């Protein structure tokens, strides 16, 4: 038995985009145990629902997290719509899907950049984020915001995308696909990258299930789990299959996410092809009464929305269970018996979104 030391990791650390604190119990260079501590960006957004009416809360829900902001808004709106029995127009569903898939694209691109940064490949990091910039420009052009869109509303969406812009989006996608292929090849084929990601943080299919892993984390271990297959929004009309890998290590997770990016591009193209004409919003009147659980697939995995309404303007409770929160047990497990040098990569591999986690 070697020397036991405790190394505090975070809340400020070069690889961490957001603050999380981990106490790492080390034996020589190997991590024996990791104890998490969160709450540095806890804002009490779930509690805020008592002070803001359900229409205003659409804007609050979006601000839970800056990366999957659209999905949060969409999840909240879908829950309230279900309670109030509102059926939103087809075109709104397709528009929501387009923005949701673009969000996935930008989230995964950001993650790729951070991963490259975590193993010290600075120029690859820059390349990924340069690509992401094009997605942000599409967002700004279609919604007005670069990260927080404020377009999702109860009953539909606030803004339409016209034909010319849709055509422009297709051009952007073609250009991006070419550039993405170039950097994806580096992540998948470069042997120095492989040295850092292959065999690191292995999670077998059974272990991933037993730890309640979600999203790309579970899919990389061979669990076929994707809420999109349930056909919410316009996903029921689109043709796609969850992307699955068997290995369950960091390399497999990178491959799954890269696969999902190409899939997202394909889904956006399908949406644009199938987009029906018509209204983008139905008028929803009255106040919600009842409760509903909504689940949808965020870039990081399945998110659960629980909304409980009492028939007044103010909701009783909004509960968001975000994918990162559910992936933390899996992270703590993979951290065991890894070397200290791999800790940054392992933390990044679950794609941590701390603002989501703490709300």
């Amino acid at each position, binding site marked *: 038995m070697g020397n036991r030391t405790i190394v505090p990791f975070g809340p400020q650390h070069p690889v961490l985009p957001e603050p999380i604190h981990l106490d790492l119990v080390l034996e020589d260079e190997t991590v024996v145990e990791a104890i998490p501590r969160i709450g540095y960006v806890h804002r009490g957004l779930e509690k805020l629902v008592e002070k*803001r009416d359900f229409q*205003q809360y659409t*804007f609050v829900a979006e*601000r839970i997290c800056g990366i999957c902001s659209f999905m949060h808004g969409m999840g909240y709106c879908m829950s309230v719509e279900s309670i109030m029995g509102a059926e939103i127009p087809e075109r709104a569903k397709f528009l929501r899907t387009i923005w949701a898939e673009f969000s996935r694209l930008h989230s995964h691109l950001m993650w790729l950049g951070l991963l490259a940064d975590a193993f010290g490949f600075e*120029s690859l990091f820059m390349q990924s984020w340069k690509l992401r910039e094009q997605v942000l420009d599409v967002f*700004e*052009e279609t919604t*007005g915001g670069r990260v927080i869109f404020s377009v999702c509303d109860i009953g539909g969406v606030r803004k339409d995308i016209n034909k010319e812009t849709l055509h422009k989006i297709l051009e952007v996608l073609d250009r991006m696909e070419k550039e993405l292929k*170039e950097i994806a090849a580096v992540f998948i084929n*470069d042997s120095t990258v492989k040295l850092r990601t292959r065999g690191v943080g292995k999670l077998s299919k059974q272990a991933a299930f037993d730890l309640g892993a979600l999203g790309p984390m579970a899919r990389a271990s061979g669990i076929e789990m994707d809420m999109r297959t349930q056909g919410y929004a316009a996903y029921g009309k689109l043709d796609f299959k969850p992307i699955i890998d068997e290995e369950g290590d960091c390399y497999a997770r990178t491959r799954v996410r890269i696969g999902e990016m190409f899939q997202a591009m394909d889904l956006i193209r399908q949406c644009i092809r199938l987009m029906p004409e018509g209204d983008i919003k139905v008028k929803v009147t009255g106040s919600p009464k009842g409760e509903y659980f909504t689940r949808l697939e965020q870039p990081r995995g399945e998110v659960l929305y629980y909304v409980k309404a009492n028939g007044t303007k103010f909701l009783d409770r909004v509960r968001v269970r975000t994918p990162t929160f559910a992936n933390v047990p899996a992270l703590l497990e993979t951290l065991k018996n890894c070397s200290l040098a791999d800790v940054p990569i392992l933390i990044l591999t679950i794609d941590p979104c701390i603002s989501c986690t703490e709300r």
Partner: protein
Amino acid sequence: MSILRMTKTLIKNLFHGPFTVSYPIEKKETFDRTRGSIGISIDDCIFCGMCERRCPTNAIHTDKARTSWSIERLKCIQCGYCTEVCPKKCLMMENHYTEPSFGNVRDVHVKCTNTQSPSES
């Protein structure tokens, strides 16, 4: 050869020049829909207080007696809800962002009303 996969991209970048914009000399162009900051055409405002009540962050304050409308720029989250609910449509989302500032800035707009009625003069 699986090492030096980046070389092609790197050489391309070497001759391309910067992809970034040298702010503040050069500014990135905005789009029609860009949500920059809230503007008001104060002459149309009827000070109904709808924007004040609907604002999720309580950034807006209206005063009917003094005919003034004010907004705290750092509190505003540019969601555009006030522009939607405004009955006179006198609030609008402008494309330019607010200037950087120290501390809280409250922009006050006061409507010039002719206090003397024509019959008195």
